[in-house]
């Protein structure tokens, strides 16, 4: 009878070896060099158009050199650089809000989405209201949120949470619905009760979609947060971008934009890594060229 050693079991190929292998393969392909070309073209064009040749409207735009100098300036002209503490106050302000919103929306959205997918009764009674409210763009809630929540922080966090909640709940529901019906059936055969099926089948089965939803939710959170901060905030990167325009501190606009981009990307990547960690089985399956 055939034995089970044909595929490397658990610990034989370490994660670190895989990483090294992939990196070396990447370095040997044209990809990283093309990437360099791309960046060079982009930044080069920006630089030439705005600082050197000052073509048309590009003249009023701060160029990459200006922005970088200011950003790394120990004594920034406009008061905001990697060396100024105010910068980190603003970054943390935005980050904190996204964190609150993300945690709240996940704690509310995932269970809500799980029930939406799992129980037909629950779905038919709740989904219509959800779907009716969803087309209203989150940012259209801004004035109402200010009216409802008077305080400074709450409207911003409410808006961000709302946007994330939609994404999380929807994707979670789709995740539950995507589970092949053989799995709950098999579990029922094996004697599992409804709650055991929920715990052992539905939740792990929906996890891939849940994490996709969470990544989208982080992106959407940043999107809404920046908008909300621009309209109604104090502190925060959106606020920075807005006021530096008003105060004609143009390089700071760019600094703000870049910072948002970096922090936004990092938070998305963190969620993705968390997902990979929690779904080891999927990572391994995909690495071996897909399961069934």
């Amino acid at each position, binding site marked *: 009878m055939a034995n089970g050693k044909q595929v490397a079991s658990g610990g034989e190929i370490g994660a670190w070896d895989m990483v090294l292998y992939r990196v070396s393969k990447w370095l040997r392909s044209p990809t990283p060099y093309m990437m360099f070309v*791309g960046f060079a073209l982009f930044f080069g064009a920006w630089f030439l158009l705005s600082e050197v040749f000052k073509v048309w409207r590009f003249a009023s735009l701060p160029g990459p050199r200006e922005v970088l100098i200011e950003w790394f300036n120990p004594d920034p002209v406009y008061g905001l650089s990697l060396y100024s503490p105010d910068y980190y106050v603003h970054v943390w302000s935005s980050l904190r809000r996204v964190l609150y919103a993300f945690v709240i929306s996940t704690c509310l959205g995932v269970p809500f989405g799980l029930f939406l997918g799992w129980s037909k009764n629950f779905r038919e009674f709740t989904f219509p209201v959800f779907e009716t409210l969803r087309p209203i763009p989150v940012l259209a809630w801004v004035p109402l949120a200010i009216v409802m929540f008077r305080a400074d922080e709450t409207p911003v966090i409410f808006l961000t949470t709302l946007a994330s909640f939609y994404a999380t709940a929807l994707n979670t529901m789709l995740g539950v619905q995507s589970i092949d019906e053989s799995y709950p059936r098999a579990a029922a055969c094996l004697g599992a009760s409804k709650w055991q099926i929920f715990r052992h089948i539905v939740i792990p089965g929906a996890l891939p979609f849940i994490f996709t939803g969470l990544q989208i939710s982080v992106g959407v959170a940043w*999107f809404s947060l920046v908008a909300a901060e621009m309209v109604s905030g104090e502190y925060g990167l959106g606020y920075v971008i*807005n006021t530096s325009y008003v105060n004609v501190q143009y390089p700071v606009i760019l600094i*703000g934009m870049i910072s948002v981009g970096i922090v936004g990307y990092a938070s998305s990547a963190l969620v993705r890594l968390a997902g990979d960690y929690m779904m080891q089985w999927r990572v391994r399956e995909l690495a071996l060229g897909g399961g069934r």
Partner: protein
Amino acid sequence: MSATIASAAQPRPRPRQSIFRNHIVRAVISIATFIVLWEVGSRLKLPWVGDVPPPTVVLKALVPLLTDQGYWYSWYQSSRRVFTGFLAAMLIGIPFGLAMATSRIFRDITFPVFEILRPIPPLAWVPAAIIFWPTQELSIGFVIFLGAIFTIMLNVIGGARSIDLRFFQAARSMGSSNWDIFRRIVLPGVLPSIIVGCEVGIGITWNVVVAAEMISGGGGAIQSSAGGGLGFFIWSSYIGGSYPLIVVGMISIGIAGYISSSIIRRLGLLVTPWVRVR
């Protein structure tokens, strides 16, 4: 204990279902409940809900608007912005995305830049856009364009990647040229993903339009009052203290957004009749 033997095969009649099991009835009940709770909560001045005008007041505020030309003009302005910005995003995003999907070199050059620009929320671009573009409309248009294009491009790339390899192999074995393959395999194969990307993109677009219009009316980057549109309508209702109109505006945008998503979905089904609805 043996159960009694069943009679000869006769299909059992389907039991009459309670009306409360019908999903349309349930939908109506749930929305009605929501409206009732809103009305009651608002009238009772419950926290948070109490500050929101109740649905009856909102309805009363809506009625005179239906004949107000300015209101419908706002609809037109917002829709125009959404439409033009979205169209521009599609006209550039789809070819760009296809190029990225088909040419390895092109993708290697452009994708990293694409990926570092993508995390920057579209609205963060507003001040930069105003500095750069000569008119306000163009600035708003640019931001809308950015909002939609990333989603569309991502979906195009994803869609192209997911086309089954065997279609290409089959076409090649039947002697297709590269252009034929592109036209008859890649384009139709990508279409469903493009449609999905558009549905998502239009939601983002409405968000951006509303925000841009509010910013143009409210404090901040754009100060002129030439903005207009439903977002501006909401904002000025807020500033002017007519709270019921805020809700009217929100509902209006919701309806407008829903209509545009439906249009895209309908067009999508027309263009891809082979896609089976789940």
